[in-house]
């Protein structure tokens, strides 16, 4: 099991619970959409997976380990196995696009010779090969999103969490990104994509978790455009 939520509830400090008794599991090699209206708590749910927030109640399992109360020292190694495309990108403004994408490798103390080509290739693929030395403040929202995507993939994550990854890019790029997630997933990476882009969801026919009113409503695959594959 890659991710397990067991009756997880979450309340930000001094506020009412925004997630209530959420339970689900994500198995190895699974692909899942996370939908729900804005403010439903999609980002908050993802935060608990990438260990930026601890649940108020309930238990979270990650890569088969109970991480609900994992000691702080145990978190970095777990986070390194997760690639996150943050909704608000979270790039470092004082670093170039290249350096931002390379960040997970730098943080791991890896020799630049070992990742330089990978970083270039990812940036080329997201169409930013010519903006490799640009800093985020000079990039458009869509460009930042693509840098964030490249950074999420560079360390070969076992779990990919994408929070509205196509929210700022044009439909062609959006489709391309989704296709990449599908391919990564085929090769073994588990994927959760939070989105409300119905056309994308419908095109792919993957299982959906729907958040509303603080609760999770499992939905089987939406009526697929093409025959739905394994969920």
């Amino acid at each position: 099991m890659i991710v397990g939520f067991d009756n997880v509830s979450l309340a930000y400090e001094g506020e009412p619970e925004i997630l209530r008794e959420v339970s689900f599991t994500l198995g190895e090699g699974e692909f899942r959409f996370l939908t729900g209206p804005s403010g439903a708590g999609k980002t908050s749910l993802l935060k608990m997976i990438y260990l930026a927030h601890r649940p108020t109640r309930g238990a979270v399992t990650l890569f088969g380990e109970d991480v609900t109360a994992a000691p702080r020292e145990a978190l970095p190694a777990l986070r390194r196995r997760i690639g996150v495309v943050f909704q608000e990108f979270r790039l470092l403004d004082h670093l170039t696009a290249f350096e931002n994408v390379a960040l997970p490798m730098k943080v791991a103390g890896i020799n630049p010779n070992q990742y330089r080509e990978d970083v270039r290739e990812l940036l080329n693929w997201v169409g930013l090969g010519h903006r490799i030395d640009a800093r985020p403040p000079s990039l458009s929202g869509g460009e930042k999103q693509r840098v964030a995507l490249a950074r999420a993939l560079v360390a070969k994550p076992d779990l990919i969490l994408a929070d509205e990854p196509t929210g700022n890019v044009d439909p062609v790029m959006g489709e391309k990104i989704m296709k990449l997630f599908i391919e990564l997933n085929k090769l073994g990476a588990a994927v959760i994509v939070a989105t409300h882009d119905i056309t994308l969801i419908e095109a792919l026919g993957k299982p959906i978790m729907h958040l509303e009113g603080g609760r999770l409503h499992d939905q089987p695959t939406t009526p697929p455009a093409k025959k739905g594959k394994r969920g």
Partner: protein
Amino acid sequence: MSDEQNIAERFVRAPGEEPQGEPRGFLGRLRAEPLLPEAGAGGAPLTAVIAVMSFLAAIALAVFVFISDAAGEWTSELERGLTIQIKGADAETIASQTQEAMRVLQSTEGVLEARAVPKEESEKLLEPWLGKGNIGAYLNIPALIEVRVDQNLRNDLSLLRTRLSAAAPGAVLDDHGEWHERLSAAARSGQLMAFAVFILVMGAGCAISVFAARAGLAANREIVSILHLVGATDDFVANQVQRRFLVLGLRGTFAGLALAMLTLGLTSLLMRAGGGPSGFLPSIKLGPQLFFTLLIVPIALCLVTAATARLTVLRTLSKEL
């Protein structure tokens, strides 16, 4: 194969391939390049404060060194020398007793040199108080004998004392003991104060580092949070901050040290220009030895600030999540 498949193949971990580790050992840490922005961590103000502290610490340390040099000079001068004062009712008694005393001195083992101070010289010593003129004519000025003795004799003057008072009842042996005591005490308290200033400055360095490290963390909160989210350990973040402090610290502390050296040099020049310190005050000796001693300041200050910054960061982060 499609573009996407190509990329996917490169960015999914092959079976058996280890996930990315973290920087290990000294080399791994060295390779971890600076990731915090230059502008963070207080920059210029912190450098300035460290420069000032470094200046104060260097001056304090130099004062400490000067005092021990000077005290050494004074006391060894005093230690080697004795003074015998011969009082008497009239000039003849004084003269004859002086001769007796000289005879005793010449026959005492351990006396290196004994010199009866000529009358004119003694009178000259009194001139500042009594004015010019033939003082000796109406005052019975005691005679003085300056004696230099070896360490053995110096350690035990009792026999000499007995022999002197037998031969010349008016002779008073002054071993400068009181002066010696007072000078040593003065030197000790001077040194203590200089040392206290040095320690206080180091303490202030710690305090400043705590504040600056906390402020730096707060100012770089989002950056630190992103570093954590992509897998950085607290240790990695602490290294980043520590490195910034080392760079700022080195810059500041060497600026302060240079300023201190300049000040000491100028003081030394002024002292020499003002008639020379030759008498009572020892000269300020600016040499490689002092320089190397003062190097303690940047080393100590950098170590103290960087280590404090590191601990502060680790402590602050340990309270998160």
